[in-house]
């Protein structure tokens, strides 16, 4: 194709975009990586953990160079009901050793690092430049417009990694879902505490870190919470369903205040100073809201393609972004070499996603977001679980101990749950997660 500035233009230097640019550059094609922030990652925020296995092939021994805050060696799931909390706490010191499992990191640092890997591979990174639209010729995407003077950039393939609001995918007509029920908004406070205080409060040493996922902490708004540790800050955040938040009349920071004041959370962060507040929308619905992934001359990856797994016990996004971005980059490079950037020429992207963890995880867990956001998971499960544990461990002498079965039955009855419904939902959960 003649008259192109680059073989591939990647829009957005987040994990997806940088992974795409790395693959294109390593395939020997020219690639421009556009970023609207002053540096990669400056617009990005997340719920705390980068799962690095996907990086193994992209950046061998990445753990020796990535700007990691702490390695997650303690993973907790907490159910909150009233001022009670039930925590399942798993520790695995093995995750603290290479090749590691999950890491906490500041996104501006992590994303800048990954974009730096792309630049080292030969990608041209241009920051402070917003892609304002697509250049199309006869239905084929042949480049992007940017907000710089003389800002048109022509390329054989455009890879849209422009985040959850993906205006490029929308402009290409690939992203019809603007239904707010597909989205949640994440809000987060980063709270500074001395490193040794964090080590003591979270019972970890050295580079070890903690990630806590919380259910039942969001009041009337379906959602969840999280707490995780950086080296010398603790992040406390919420994920909140958009329609309920808009209808409920309770503002996000008020729900966050209640979580921070909860007896299970307050001692962890007491005396800390809020050093940053942040917010970002999350494509919660996953597989069911995914746009068309391939168009004529355009591929969509990362949050732009709703590749964020918000499935209760799993909260992953960066790994899916890197996975999808890398595959998009590989497909785009191949298409540029062959000179066929039509949707048919790019179709390999979809099929490679299908055979990778990216789409298979999403397809298998497509029901999970609905389950997690259901009233049963949001309200009943935390209340019943906390209640049962309370009854089990409350010593009622001189009354003899009630049997377990009776405790569970009583608690279920108190919350108006019928065994039939419980079985049905349990079966559904088993089908989804099993």
């Amino acid at each position, binding site marked *: 194709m003649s008259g192109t500035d680059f073989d591939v233009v990647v829009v957005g230097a987040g994990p997806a975009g940088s992974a795409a640019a790395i693959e294109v550059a390593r395939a020997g094609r020219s690639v421009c990586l556009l970023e609207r922030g*002053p540096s990669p990652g400056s*617009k990005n925020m997340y719920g705390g953990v980068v799962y690095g296995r996907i990086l193994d092939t992209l950046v061998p021994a990445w753990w020796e160079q990535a700007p990691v805050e702490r390695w997650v060696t303690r993973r907790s799931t907490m159910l909150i009901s009233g001022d009670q909390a039930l925590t399942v706490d798993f520790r695995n010191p093995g995750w603290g050793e290479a090749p590691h499992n999950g890491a906490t990191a500041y996104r*501006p640092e992590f994303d800048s690092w990954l974009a730096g890997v792309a630049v080292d591979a030969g990608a041209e990174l241009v920051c*402070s430049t917003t892609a304002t639209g697509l250049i199309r010729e006869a239905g084929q995407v042949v480049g992007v417009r940017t907000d710089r003077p003389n800002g048109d950039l022509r390329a054989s393939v455009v890879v849209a990694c422009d985040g959850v609001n993906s205006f490029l995918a929308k402009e290409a007509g690939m992203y019809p879902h603007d239904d707010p029920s597909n*989205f949640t908004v994440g809000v987060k406070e980063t709270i500074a505490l001395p490193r040794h205080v964090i080590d003591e409060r979270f019972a970890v040493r050295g580079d070890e870190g903690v990630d806590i996922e919380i259910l039942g902490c969001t009041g009337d708004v379906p959602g969840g919470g999280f707490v995780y540790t950086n080296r010398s*800050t603790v992040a406390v955040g919420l994920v909140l369903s958009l329609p309920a938040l808009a209808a409920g009349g309770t503002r996000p920071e008020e729900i966050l205040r209640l979580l921070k004041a*909860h007896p299970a959370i307050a001692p962890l962060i007491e005396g800390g100073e809020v050093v940053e507040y*942040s917010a970002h929308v999350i494509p919660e619905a996953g597989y069911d809201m995914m746009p068309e992934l391939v168009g004529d001359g355009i591929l969509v990856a990362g949050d732009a393609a709703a590749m964020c797994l918000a499935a209760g016990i799993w909260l992953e996004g960066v790994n899916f972004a890197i996975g999808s971005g890398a595959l998009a980059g590989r497909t785009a490079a191949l298409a540029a070499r062959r000179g066929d950037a039509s949707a048919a020429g790019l179709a390999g992207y979809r099929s490679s996603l299908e055979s990778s963890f990216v789409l298979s995880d999403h397809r298998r867990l497509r029901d999970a977001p609905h389950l997690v956001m259901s009233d049963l998971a949001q309200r009943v499960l935390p209340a019943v679980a906390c209640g049962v544990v309370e009854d089990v461990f409350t010593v009622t002498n001189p009354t003899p101990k009630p049997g377990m079965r009776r405790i569970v039955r009583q608690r279920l009855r108190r919350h108006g749950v019928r065994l039939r419904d419980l079985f049905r939902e349990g079966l559904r959960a088993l089908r989804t997660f099993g």
Partner: protein
Amino acid sequence: MTASSYPEISFERRMSTVEFRVDSDRAHITVDDTVCRDCTTRGCITACPANLFVPTAAGGILFNYEQCFECGTCYLVCNEEGAITWTYPEGGHGVVFHRS
């Protein structure tokens, strides 16, 4: 719930922890508040994490774009077609996270 012994920070203090490189030439959000007058839900007012939307006595919506997280919540919850026009700010401007 027991109250923390440390008082909650004010909303202004909370927002002051965030760096915004404001583009003084162009507002990246615009609100056609003639449409908002007929809106009964007004989800943007409670949902916007930066609290940028404020109802006016006249029944409209007053908005500010300077302290925007660029998250997109407002236009997603807005059910009045075309009331909120939302684009990204000019490159290099807008919110800059450091510890997110």
